[in-house]
């Protein structure tokens, strides 16, 4: 699609638009660059510049609490990604390839975790677990507590939707006639899925999984509501540190978290490139 000459703003308007665009990019990136630079500053005061040092990074790597919370984050992200990728892919298949009663209700239910504000979902999960544990404990005499498992269950609850939306987009653009052809050739339903559908949607499934991983590693609010003693994730721990006041170590750990975020983003962008190259070959 090329923009026609008269449709495009000319003269002053054109330069205003370009200048505005670069200002928006500056707004996005200058604060991040400032954080990056100051994370190497030798000063104990955040935002003051002194001779560069790697001291704050060393502090982060030697901090046991941070090590522990990273491990909790990784485990939550790993398990919630695997489970929600399977469930989300099944949801996408059910919505894109089948017609059944209750389909619209399911569709609506699947959208809600995407747009609900974090605080509201956090309240829902907390009240639900407290109430459910109350009932279960009183019947079976058990003693369930908030902790790793409640964090995991909550993360799966919002990640299914993120995976489903990505896989659905991929399914919608894939070719259903190939599946019909396989079926005509007496492939079993499982063979049909395994050999025809899955290879076609695989890039979408991987992109969905990466997205779920990113969202899970980012979450603060919902996790901080359903966490228990001994199972703090990294963002929840860092959030607690920020509340107590700024410190150069927070700068360093923030930079590391941004680097991980960006690595995941570039991973999924690369995947999308693979997808578009594939489809241009067709």
């Amino acid at each position, binding site marked *: *699609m090329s*923009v*026609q000459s*008269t*449709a495009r703003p000319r003269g002053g*308007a054109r330069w205003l638009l370009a200048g*505005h*665009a670069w200002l*928006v*990019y500056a707004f996005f990136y200058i*604060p991040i660059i400032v954080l990056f630079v*100051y994370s190497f500053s030798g000063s104990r005061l955040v*935002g003051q510049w002194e001779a560069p040092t790697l001291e704050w990074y060393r502090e982060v790597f030697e901090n046991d609490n941070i090590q522990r919370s990273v491990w909790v984050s990784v485990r939550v992200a790993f398990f919630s990604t695997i489970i929600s990728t399977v*469930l989300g892919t*099944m*949801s996408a298949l*059910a919505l894109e*390839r*089948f*017609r*059944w*009663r*209750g*389909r619209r209700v*399911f569709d609506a239910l699947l*959208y809600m*975790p*995407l*747009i*609900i*504000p*974090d*605080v*509201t979902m*956090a*309240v*829902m*999960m907390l*009240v*639900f677990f407290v*109430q459910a544990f109350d009932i279960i404990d009183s019947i079976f005499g058990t003693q369930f507590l908030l902790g790793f498992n409640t964090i995991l269950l909550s993360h799966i*609850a919002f990640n*299914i939707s993120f995976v*489903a939306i990505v896989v659905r987009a991929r399914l919608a653009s894939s070719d259903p*006639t190939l599946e*019909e052809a396989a*079926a005509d050739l007496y492939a079993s339903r499982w063979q049909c899925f395994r050999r*025809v*559908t899955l290879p076609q949607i695989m890039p979408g499934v991987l992109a969905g999984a990466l997205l779920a991983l*990113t969202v899970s590693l*980012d979450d603060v609010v919902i996790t901080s*509501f359903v966490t228990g003693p001994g199972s703090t994730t990294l963002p929840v721990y*860092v959030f607690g540190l*920020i*509340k107590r006041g700024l410190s150069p170590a927070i700068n360093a750990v*923030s930079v590391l978290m941004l680097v991980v*975020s960006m690595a*995941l*983003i570039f991973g999924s*962008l690369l995947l999308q490139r693979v997808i578009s190259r594939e489809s241009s070959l067709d």
Partner: protein
Amino acid sequence: MTTDFGVVPDLTPEQEHESGAPALEAASERRAARRGFLVALPSFAYLVIFFAIPLVIVLVYSFATRNPRGITELRDWNVEAYRALAEPLLRSVLVRTLVLALLTTVICLALSYPFAYYMATRDSEVVRTLLLIGVMIPFWSNFLVRTYVIRVLLSSSGPLSEASQSIGLGEVDIAFSNAAVLIGLVYGFLPFMILPLYAALERIDWNLVEAARDLYASGWKAFRRVVWPLSRPGVVAGCILVFVPSFGAYVTSDILGGAKNPLFGNYIVNQFLQARDWPAGAAVSVVILAVMLIGTLVYFRTGGRTL
């Protein structure tokens, strides 16, 4: 005929020979419907248990009673928690939340529209992709860290203050103010406005603008009568995607606003984790949910189909 895979192999050639076609089609459609339900069942059940039921419980709690020890009792149903919304304390929080969320939405729209327009009118596909990646990175970056970045920037005697002093504008001291929260909200949610706007503007057939200009429409008139109406679904989607999370914001106001400037989100967290007045917190959560549902309905009513 649906395109459900696996519909045909259910029928052996003999069966196909014996039965009439319409009855056959109805039967296979019924089978496909049952299979579709079975494929959805695990996630459907999961979301009912871990999303729908929690939602109902919060609704129930908002009408419950809190006893003096701070424990919620499911009896003596009342609407006290909702009545509190009209009292001065909570009303001022409501007004502040509403004003900040509206301002955030308006500022994001004003910043994003020309920006998305610029992105969408680049000729080269490579340039457009690069510009888009520049927005995708903040969109998917860790939200907590992006809020903290603003906190560092605005800290008293921090980088922004020093920069403004060095060019003779004097100290900037807006840490822990409504202005700081507003900057943080705009910084956090700007990509949520740009991306749907770009998606809408990129789809526009620019030949229409060309045609309008050929018919002697001024640049402004061509924009107002052609581009703006065609981009409206993107505007609506962007406004909802910014307004709803701003209205429920918690992290931004907690880090940038301090204790003096609470929003609804801070009020809720406080009710649940400190004051132990769960019905009050649940009632405010229900209000946020209602705002979200109204936003979604507006979106679908104005012709949007997918978010």
